[in-house]
C-alpha cells in the first residue's frame, strides 16, 4: 500500500475539464515530483489532494483510508499539509503569527515538542527568526516561500505538498529551498513536489510524473526522466 493513491481522478472547473483520469502513487518516505507545462493540471491535482477542490469521479486514498470522505480542514489533522501556489501568506499577520497558523490544529502548544518544532523552523530559516514581528505582506518573495514552508512544517505533516516552491525566486533562494526540501525529506517527511523547474525537481525526486492537459503522459524515476531525450526537449531546456 502506498501512502497516497490517486486512481482515475477527474476534476472539472465548471465545464472545463482540468484532470482527466490521473493515477499516481506516493510511497512513504519518498520525494515524488509532478512536472508539466502551465495548465497541465499540476496545481489542480494538489488542490484536489488537500480538499480545496472536490472530485468529479475517481478514488483518493491516504494511508489506506478514503480521503474524499475527509473534510478539507480535517485533512491537515490527518497529516497532509500544503504549501500553496503563490505561497498564501496571511498578509496582515506577522511572521510569528503566520507560523503559528500552521499549528492551528495542534493541541500540544505547551509541550516541549511544540517548542522544538518552532525552534527547528527558525533553524531551517534563520531569516524568519530575524523578521518574527514583521507583517507577512511586507516580506520578499523568497522570504514568503520560506515562511510558507516553515508554516506547513508546524503542522507536523507526514505528507508535505509543495506547489511550485521555486516560482519567482532568485537563484540563491532556489538552491536554499531545494536543500531544505531534501533535508525535510531525510527526516522522514514524504514530499509531493510540483515544479516547473524540472531539472532541479527531477534531480531530487525518487519518482516523477509528467502531466499534460490533465493526464499523466510519462512516469518513472527522477533519473530515468532526466535522461529521457523527449523530456529533455520539452521540459529541461536542453536542445
Amino acid at each position, binding site marked *: 500500500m502506498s501512502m497516497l493513491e490517486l486512481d482515475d481522478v477527474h476534476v472539472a472547473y465548471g465545464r472545463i475539464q482540468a484532470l482527466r483520469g490521473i493515477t499516481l502513487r506516493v510511497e512513504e518516505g519518498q520525494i515524488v515530483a509532478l512536472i508539466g507545462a502551465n495548465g497541465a493540471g499540476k496545481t489542480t491535482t494538489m488542490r484536489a489532494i488537500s480538499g480545496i477542490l472536490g472530485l468529479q469521479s475517481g478514488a483518493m486514498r491516504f494511508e489506506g483510508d478514503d480521503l474524499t470522505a475527509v473534510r478539507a*480542514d480535517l485533512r491537515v489533522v490527518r497529516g497532509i499539509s500544503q504549501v*500553496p501556489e503563490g505561497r498564501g501568506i496571511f498578509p496582515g*499577520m506577522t511572521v510569528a503569527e503566520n507560523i503559528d497558523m500552521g499549528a492551528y490544529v495542534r493541541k500540544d502548544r505547551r509541550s516541549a515538542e511544540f517548542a522544538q518544532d518552532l525552534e527547528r523552523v527558525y533553524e531551517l530559516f534563520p531569516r524568519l527568526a530575524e523578521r518574527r514581528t514583521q*507583517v507577512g505582506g511586507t516580506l520578499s518573495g523568497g522570504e514568503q516561500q520560506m515562511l510558507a514552508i516553515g508554516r506547513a512544517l508546524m503542522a507536523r505533516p507526514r505528507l508535505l505538498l509543495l506547489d511550485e516552491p521555486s516560482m519567482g525566486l532568485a537563484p540563491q533562494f532556489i538552491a536554499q529551498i531545494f536543500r531544505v526540501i531534501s533535508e525535510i525529506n531525510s527526516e522522514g517527511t514524504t514530499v509531493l513536489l510540483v515544479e516547473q523547474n524540472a531539472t532541479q525537481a527531477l534531480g531530487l525526486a525518487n519518482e516523477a510524473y509528467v502531466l499534460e492537459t490533465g493526464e499523466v503522459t510519462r512516469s518513472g524515476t527522477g533519473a530515468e526522466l532526466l535522461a529521457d531525450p523527449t523530456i529533455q526537449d520539452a521540459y529541461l531546456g536542453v536542445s
Partner: protein
Amino acid sequence: MPDAPGERVISVLDLAALDPAALAPLVVHAEPWINFDVGLLVDRFWANTINGLAYGSVYALIALGYTLVYGVLQLINFAHSEIFVIGVFGVYLTFVALGFEPGAIPNLPLAAIILDLVLAGLVAMAVAGLAAIGLERVAYRPLRRRNAPRLAFLITAIGASFVIQQVIRIWRGSNPEGTIRLLPPSPVFSIFGAPVTNLQIVIILASIAMFVVTDRFVNGSRLGRGIRAVAQDPATATLMGVNRERVITITFLVGGVLAGVAALFYLMTIPQGAVYNGGFLLGIKAFTAAVLGGIGNLRGALLGGLILGVAENYGQSLFGGDWRDVVAFVLLVLVLMFRPTGILGESLARSRA
C-alpha cells in the same frame, strides 16, 4: 471696509472669543429652515460630546457586527439591524416578564435594578446571538453552498431584513411598545458645566469594555486567529485546518451578541420604545460608522461609531434638530472622498485587525 456697528471679526482659532454672547451676531437666519447657530454649538459643546459618546457607543457596538461579517464574508449583512431589533424586544419582553410596566419608574433597591438590567442584557445577547446564527444558516449558508454570486447575497440580506421586520410587525403590531425605564438618568458629576449621567458613564465604559473583549478575542484567541485567517485568505485558512463554516458561525454569533448589548443600552437611554422598524435608521447609522472607520476593521468600528455620535450632536446644535441625520451622512461622504477605505482602512483583511 468700515466696520459696521455690531460686527466683529472673529478668528476661528481664537479660543477667548468662543463666548456665546460674542458669537450671537454670527447666528444666521437667512432661511427659516436652516440655522447656523455657532453660539449653541459652543454652548452645548461638552453636553453634546458626552451625549454623542454615549450614542456613538451604541453605534459602535452594532457597527462591530457589520464589520466582523464583512471581514469574513465581504458581505454587508443588512439584516444585522433586525438582529438588533430582536435584541431590543428581548430586553423589553424580559422587563415585562419581570413585572415592570411602561411609564412608572420602579421603586426598587439599586442592586435589584442592576440585577434586572444584567438579566435583560443576557437574554438580549442570547436571543440576538442565536438569531444571527439562524439568519446565517437559513439565508446565507445555502447560497454559499451553491457558490452564488455576491449580488445574490446582497439581495438576500435586504430580503431577510424585510422578512424579520414584517414578522415582528405582525407579531407585535406597528406601534412602539411603551418605554420601560428601570434606571432614570441622574447626573453624577459634570465636565465644564455639562452634567454626566450614570447611564452615560455605564454605557460608554461598558461599550469600551465589550470592544476590548472582542478585540482580544479576535487578535488573541485561537478561534480569533481563525477568523482573521479566513478574512485574509479563505482557501489558505482551510489548508491550515481552519473550519471555515465554523468560523462564519462564530462571527455571526459574536456580532449578534454585541447587537444584544447595544439593544440593552438603546432601551436604557433612548426614549423610543421597542418597535419593529426601530433598527432601520440605527442600522444604517451603525453601518455608516463601520464604513467611516474602515469596514472590516474592529478599531475602525469603534472610532467611526464615536465620531459619528459626536458629530451628529454637534450638527444638531449647529444646524437644527432636523439636520442631525443629514450631518451624519454628509460626514460619511466627506470622509470617503478623501479616504475611500475609511479613517483606519480595511484591516481585518489587509493588516492587523
